[in-house]
């Protein structure tokens, strides 16, 4: 597969990743969120493999398999178990309505494009055009954390941000050293477990996972 085709495939996958990031912003149902997150992880791992092939960096293959195992299989499974144990089945409410969130998302994409244009001029890598998308994915993950009221969606937003950072690493510098990646992957796994434990605690204390309830924790005079 020639380099040019690899670059195009990478662009297509980047576009799909951006699409799933927007999908996470718009999706109302919690299983839909999980599925979208899994798809995002899948596209990410395929993209890593393609970049590994195009740039001739072998360690990216290992990262790709790691991403596949962790983000497509293990994490969604953990979250799935969490959702069943917590008994959440209804729709998620949002702080701002969905069209407004979409417009903010588009503004963030334009902003990140504008921000990364000097980097794009200077970079010589195959993946230079996807840096803007990576930054946009990070910001969209953060936007998702801001505009959602439910605790489980916040963790999905956090994980989406991490996806974006990983994608940025792949685009900007052909991935991080393998040791760093293994460390980060382990951290994510532990974070998922800790989140799960905390959710049970929150639920017992507040009887709901709506983060607005946590506003009760502030000091009242």
């Amino acid at each position, binding site marked *: 597969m020639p380099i040019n085709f690899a670059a195009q495939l990478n662009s297509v996958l980047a576009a799909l990743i951006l699409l799933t990031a927007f999908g996470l912003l718009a999706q109302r149902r919690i299983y839909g969120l999980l599925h979208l997150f899994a798809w995002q992880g899948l596209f990410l791992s395929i993209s890593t493999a393609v970049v590994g092939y195009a740039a001739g960096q072998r360690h990216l293959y290992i990262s790709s398999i790691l991403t596949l195992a962790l983000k497509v299989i293990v994490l969604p499974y953990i979250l799935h178990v969490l959702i069943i144990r917590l008994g959440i089945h209804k729709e998620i409410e949002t702080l701002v309505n969905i069209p407004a969130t979409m417009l903010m998302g*588009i503004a963030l994409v*334009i902003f990140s*494009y*504008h921000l990364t*244009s000097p980097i794009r001029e200077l970079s010589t890598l195959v993946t230079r055009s996807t840096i803007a998308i990576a930054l946009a994915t990070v910001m969209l993950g953060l936007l998702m954390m801001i505009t959602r009221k439910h605790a489980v969606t916040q963790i999905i937003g956090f994980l989406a941000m991490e996806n974006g950072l990983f994608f940025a690493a792949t685009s900007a510098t052909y991935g991080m050293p393998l040791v760093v990646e293994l460390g980060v992957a382990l951290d994510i796994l532990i974070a998922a477990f800790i989140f799960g434990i905390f959710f049970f605690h929150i639920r017992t204390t507040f009887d709901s996972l709506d983060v607005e309830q946590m506003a009760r924790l502030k000091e009242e005079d």
Partner: protein
Amino acid sequence: MISPFILTSASLFVILLALILVPLLSRSQRLLIVSVFSLTAVASLLTLTAGIWTVRDGITESYIILLGLPDLPFHMRLDPLSGFFLTVIGALGFMVSVYSIGYVKGFIGHRPVTSLVVFYSLFLAGMFMVVLADDAFFFLISWEVMAAASYFLVMFEDEKTENRRAAFLYLVVAHIGAIAILLSFGLMAGSATGFEGFNGYTFDAMRHATFPPHWAAVAFFLAFFGFAAKAGVVPLHVWLPEAHPVAPSNVSALMSGIMLKTAIYGIVRVTFDLIRDFPWWWGTVVLIFGLASALLGILYALQQQDLKKLLAYSSVENIGIILIGIGLSMTFAAFHNPVLSALALTAGLYHTLNHAMFKGLLFMGAGAVLHATHERNMEETGGLIHKMPWTSALFLIGCLSISALPPFNGFVSEWLTFQAFLLSTALPSTLLNLLIPLGAALLALAAALAAMCFVKAFGVTFLGQWRGRHHPHIHEVDWSMRTGMGMAAIACLCLGIFPTVMINWMDAVSVMLVRGKLSESAGAFGWLWLTPLSHERASYSGPIVLLGIVGVVSVVFLLLHARRRTIHRGPLWDCGFEKITPRMQYTATAFSMPIRRVLGFLFHVRERQEAKRHPVHKAFIERLRYSLRVRDHLWDWLYQPVADVSFWVARRVGRLQQGRIQVYLIYSFVTIILLLVLLR
């Protein structure tokens, strides 16, 4: 030796003659109306000819008239830009003057029309002079004549409180704008001569001056603020929907059709002619204001039940579209792209002419409806197409034009604006490349909403059945009103099917202002096709669309009518409910309800329902009361605070008026002592 300038001065003299005739003829109102309006029609025709001639040949003439103050004579100048606007003013002025002969006759017996006639002539004269003025002094005098005359025209039916209130609001906003324009001219004049001596007040001096960049920006934005207040750009548009509906309809046609355009003339003159170098972000600011006006204007128009208020808000939208064209032109010019800048400028100016034509037609139609039914509220009318066939057909042409449907003129200018948007990818700035297409999408939304608004306006007023409780005797309007409207409708059609001819004619304007020509590429494929850049890029042929539709429609009609089948008339489909009444039709409020639901967060909507239930059986509702109020957010966010602050300041300053003589004497005494100390 006849020159366009001689024609223009002749027309001003004709108006003067009309004004002289007024006291002589004021006894016989009918004769007064016929003579004065015929004279204004002649005057408009003269300026129309002068304008067409000037632009076609690209003539520039300047004169100095020795009126005015001793050292400050009036400078007048006729160049392609003023010629273009003279054409616009003259064309609509002629049509509305013919229309007014019949319309104003409707006021005879109710009130004396002398003041209407006098101020109408002054209004027209003021507008002619504004576009001819070549120095700040004469410009502002003509501007004031225009504003004052239109104030009295708006106040014509002054027995109603809301009319007086609307006129007062209009006056306040017009003067705030005039102050801003004055300050701007002062700044530019000062920069031209270094704040010494008086010669900087001529536009020529301002043209040749170089402005320091920050002061140029201040001058531009002051001028933009002032002219935007007159043009009705959001957020300074609040006077428009108050003032235009209460004025007599021929005056509303003039105000909406041409007075707003003089403000556009001001913006174009100041930016492209007086301040010649500007950075790109000015154009983007103008573009943003244009987009906001376009969208908000049409959304408010959709919520109206008063036909003339709907038309007034729609003017806000169209001014927004014109500003979009001008803003794009400024941006392209700042990036040194003369062809694209000419395209955008042509789109904006073409829309100016188009809007004058179709808005004039629509207001004249609304006036005809008002004349015949004495109803301005659409929800009390309906079914007028059967009683007023000519008016409805002509109003339909106006609605088709304003909704930007081929083959009429509104489509051509909006199409050119879209082409200018699509070409923004030629700009070197990546941020603009991404943001401008979003602006194009907003314009598309506004244009589609305009179509919806005019389906509502035409459908509720003319179609269906009469919704009102009273059944007045309705008949078609007289020949003069029909002629006025008919001429505007023909103009709409011609401007739609001969765009290449118009662009060839308008070339002189874009050459003068942005040094770029559109006509070479626009007609390059043949006069039938409008190809802004090249025919591979985009092309449109108005005549062929018209012929195609007419051809297919005729062929199908003839084929189907060959077999003579009978047509039966039957009652309406009522789904089994036999007691269907005209009150069950869709009203104007009902028609726009989905948009109110979807986009209502942009304005302040208060909907209330009160049900009076049966005293014994609570499930049955005896009477239902529904009230809807849609308000501009800007009243609460912008105008109310400004009004509150002004009153607060006024109250504080009012403390100076103590009422006792000693205190006033102390003021004088202290002032004298201070002056003696400081000016020793």
